């Protein structure tokens, strides 16, 4: 006997994501989901961003890693409350784990901005909605300018693209124009921020983007 269904496979995750979305909207919190390769500079971007957002006031972070709490320790030093989620053998954060972390963060403080640093990976995290306001694709110039069309799902869903480590541009063959052209083929509207987290170059527009998203909530 054949049973025709058309049931959503990731329905459980989507239900948790929807709960997160409702809880965040009720509290007026904006949540960003940072997705990029291991070593793309997500944690360093966050450290600098926390310091520039009034020393981290109103900012909280959820750290997703396979193992260790190294990133959480760095974020704590930068001045933001942080919850570390270790996914074990998991390659992405699920909306249920983020739900528990949000509960913990919101009970202790009342953040207005939450950054989720997803597990370093361009593939799996793109498939799992966390209930965020927007996915932020993080791409470093050392990874090459051909990555956008190789991993189109993430870049097409992104609400912004952050190109990191631009201080290294003279030492790579990364062509900003080429990356931008590829990005525009899959994503027409999302802004692109090119910056360097060590020198602080290019952070003005990115910080303004984060603040504007937070104000709209």
């Amino acid at each position: 006997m054949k049973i025709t269904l058309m049931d959503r496979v990731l329905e459980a995750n989507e239900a948790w994501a929807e709960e997160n979305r409702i809880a965040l909207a009720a509290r007026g919190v904006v949540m960003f989901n940072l997705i990029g390769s291991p070593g793309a500079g997500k944690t360093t971007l966050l450290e600098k961003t926390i310091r520039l957002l009034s020393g981290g006031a109103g900012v909280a972070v959820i750290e997703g890693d396979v193992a260790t709490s190294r990133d959480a320790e760095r974020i704590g030093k930068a001045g933001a409350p942080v919850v570390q989620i270790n996914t074990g053998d998991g390659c992405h954060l699920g909306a249920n784990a983020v739900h528990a972390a949000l509960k913990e963060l919101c009970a202790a403080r009342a953040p207005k901005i939450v950054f989720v640093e997803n597990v370093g990976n361009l593939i799996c995290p793109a498939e799992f909605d966390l209930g965020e306001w927007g996915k932020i694709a993080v791409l470093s110039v050392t990874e090459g300018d051909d990555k956008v069309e190789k991993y189109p799902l993430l870049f097409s869903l992104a609400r912004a693209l952050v190109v990191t480590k631009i201080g290294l541009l003279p030492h790579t063959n990364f062509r900003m124009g080429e990356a931008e052209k590829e990005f525009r083929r899959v994503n027409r509207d999302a802004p692109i921020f090119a910056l360097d987290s060590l020198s602080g170059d290019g952070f003005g527009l990115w910080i303004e983007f984060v603040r504007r998203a937070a104000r709209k909530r």
Partner: protein
Amino acid sequence: MHELSIVQGILGIIEKERKARGFTRVKSVEVQCGHYSCVSEESLAFCLEAVATDPHMKGAALRLVRMPAMFVCRGCGVEFPGTGPETRVCPSCGAADPEPQMRSELFVRSLEVD
């Protein structure tokens, strides 16, 4: 290994149907995914076999149906299927650079059961 999360979702759907309909054996599962979904039939089937140890799942086959990539013309708004990111021209008005519609949705399309 996000195949594990996906297989757990598939097994949840099968369990819900089994409780409602009372079948005793699943012969095959048909899963549908978007063109850009990051899943492969081989790894899903492998993972299903490893995780689904209940007797009613013994020997169950998995088939993955990948839907074509869809594009929307930025000029005339018509939606059309393409072959992938290399699709660059609208078949209706000829405008270049159509917008890919990224669909990653995963569905259990059907079950073959006894």
